[in-house]
């Protein structure tokens, strides 16, 4: 399968970590043999959210912060589609924070890749919810003082079905985690560390390399207590699959519309006889 768009004008800066994510994603999709026509990439707004334009697939590039609600329903009305959300830290954890919480609760069978560069790129360098304390920007002139948003800890607290972190400096790890996330049934979060070469001079590719380590094979992501410890660890930051919940039905599987009938909702017809009977039931 070829997800390559050919020669296109890409809006990212040279050296941007997003290129690595794009490469890893396209390779993973090819490896998983997903057909472009059966894939929908969903995004909000921001540099990361432009990713769908650079992959040969269906796409829904919606509003800032609002990728998860349409993604959830795209999957729900046609479960035959593979749905992947690509979003940035501001889009997903800031503007879209409420949807992040409730999408995890619903557990739709979608993959959510968050390009986490700890800064706002498209709006030129303001703090993001994941910016580290002390991070100075043109807007946070004395440095960030808020507690950084911890997406992994929130996801583990909500018993998310798949929670992982990777960093784009390790392309092979990223590809492996993307593949596991996409294959996973249920909500799969991949928080992906990535450098912003233009607006984040602190959290560089080198910084991520220095401040992360890969969880070893002995780590059991099914242990929620251990997962919690890994989720709140910051110095250095663990990479890998942090947590997988005990198996649970996805949002689509829980929906009454699919309990006895697997046909995608979009292929169904109006139940005229039942509607006529319902109307008749209101006769005196």
């Amino acid at each position, binding site marked *: 399968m070829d997800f390559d768009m050919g020669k296109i004008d890409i*809006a990212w800066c040279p050296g941007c970590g997003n290129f690595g994510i794009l490469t890893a994603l396209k390779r993973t999709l090819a490896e998983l043999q997903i057909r472009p026509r059966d894939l929908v990439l969903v995004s909000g707004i921001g540099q990361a959210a432009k990713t769908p334009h650079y992959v040969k697939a*269906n*796409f829904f590039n*919606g509003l800032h912060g609002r990728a998860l609600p349409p993604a959830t329903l*795209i999957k729900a*009305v*046609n479960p035959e589609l593979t749905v992947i959300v690509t979003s940035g830290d501001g889009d997903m954890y800031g503007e879209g924070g409420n949807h992040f919480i409730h999408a995890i609760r619903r557990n739709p069978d979608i993959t959510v890749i968050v390009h986490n560069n700890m800064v706002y790129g498209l709006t030129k360098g303001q703090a993001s919810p994941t910016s580290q304390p002390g991070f100075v920007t043109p807007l946070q002139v004395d440095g960030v003082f808020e507690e950084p948003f911890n997406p992994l800890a929130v996801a583990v607290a909500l018993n998310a079905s798949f929670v992982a972190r990777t960093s784009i400096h390790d392309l092979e790890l990223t590809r492996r985690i993307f593949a596991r996330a996409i294959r996973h049934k249920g909500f799969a979060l991949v928080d992906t560390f990535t450098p912003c070469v233009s607006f984040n001079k602190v959290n560089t590719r080198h910084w991520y390399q220095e401040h992360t380590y890969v969880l070893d094979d002995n780590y059991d992501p099914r242990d929620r207590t251990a997962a919690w410890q890994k989720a709140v660890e910051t110095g250095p930051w663990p990479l890998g699959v942090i947590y997988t919940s005990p198996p649970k039905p996805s949002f689509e599987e829980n929906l009454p519309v699919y309990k006895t009938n697997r046909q995608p909702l979009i292929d169904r017809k109006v139940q005229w006889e039942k509607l006529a009977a319902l109307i008749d039931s209101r*006769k005196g």
Partner: protein
Amino acid sequence: MTGSPAAHDISIVLAGEAGQGIQTIEQLLTAILQLAGFHIHATKEYMSRVRGGTNSTSIRVASRPVQAPLQRIDLLIPLDEKVIPHLRYRLTEETIIVGDREVVGDLSRLRHVPLRQLAREIGNEMYANTMALGLILGLLAVEAQVMEQYLASRFAGKGEEVVANNLQAARLGHDRGYALRESGEIRFPEIMRHDNAKEIMVNGSEAIAMGAIAGGCQCITSYPMTPGTGVITFMAQHQHDFGLLVEQAEDEIAAINMALGAWYAGARAMVTTSGGGFALMTEGISLAGMLETPVVIHLGQRPGPATGLPTRTEQGDLELALYAGHGEFPRIILAPESLPGAFALSRQAFDLADRYQVPVIILTDQYLVDTYYNTAAFVLDPRQTSRFIVESAEDYQRYRLTPDGISPRAIPGRGLGLVGVDSDEHDEAGHITEDLELRVKMVDKRLHKLEKIKEALLPAGLAGPGDYRAIVVSWGSVNPIVREALAQLGVNDVAQIAIQQVYPLPADLGHYLAAADKTIIVENNATAQLGHLIQRETGHGFHQAILKYNGLPFTVEELVDDLQKCLPAS
């Protein structure tokens, strides 16, 4: 007019605190009155609380179909003492108040019936409500048998004792009522009955929901907000039968974005809300405009600004619906005036949204969604749904520039092509563009759809004499009230335009208005929002506005008075 207005109908009001069971009596009473063959119109006003306060239900029992509320009360059944001050403005010299002194105190005009005492004799005070029900039915000379049959089937699941006690209470009440009637002590005019075998009784929320199902709606995502909640509740309760996807969203922003995702992927979806929730959806409405993804929004209006009067009615959100969403894009706004109108327009909304790839807003209000009356059973024929989705070819482009501005809409996974939609300005394939020439083409394409919509919509529909001197214009739920008031006035040189298609406005509207000596706009708001829209679109400024914005719907009597003052003497 022959005799007093009461010759045609009886206005019955039940009132008391929230939690006293008014809704139950109302439901039983209207069902039995329907069985007995009366024409009925029922509407309620209630406070935003679960207990206490004063709520009331007005039931109009009539010899002919009625679609409007009355001001006057002929028979008042108060369930507590606070009712009288709450409803004093609706009482007339002739109003008969029947109740229990033990409950409502020593009212000078009260016809005392010891409901509680009698209920205690049966075994429990809670049967006092059933007794009141029987009393009303006795006063109307409804056959005891009709009442008993209904109650027996209604309470069947609750055990023999409950059935027996309720029947006994109802019968006792009925005997009392019938005796009061026969003695001539309380005598209402005779109300004619009719064969209603082909009629149904539903409320506005149910009519909207049934219309949506008939329109092919498969999915509803919403956040609860009065008075929009009734639609999603009804659909939730019938989701198993109809295969509906019903999801309570975390907020209205999620709700509208979910609905857009559903439409994009090929389902028909809707959201239901009220003004505050709709305000949160406005960015999503703009998104629908840009993506050219259809969506249907039910906006049940209540008085604002902000939280306003949560359980009451107003037509205050027309301008909100009209201007919601940044940027310029077409939309359709429908305002059903009646229950059959709510069903038909709700159904039609889905085809319109799909055909023109625009947001369609159904504007109702608390009065309409909570009102019910007997009406001809909704017609489903033709039992088919228009299909506007195409199968994509390999070179498919979602926003292909076409002469009419409508690009064939494909969905992901159905065809060889790819479907891309984008909230940025985009090229024909849906990819971000900053090609400013293309921008102009895309704006023109989107706006051109409005011209196509205008060509397809209905004419204004003028009712009344062709050689009118005056025209009265109203919209949505106010229309039938104006209609009855005009009929009662018996004026022969006044025409009515009852608008249900608020935007775009009917093309012939300006032409009708220009030919009138006097034009009057009637709206359930404080600023005549439709009047301003009509002025903007046609250049016609109304001579007079009749406006009501205290949270209650107009009544027939009010409009008779107000119109009489406005209309030129013939």
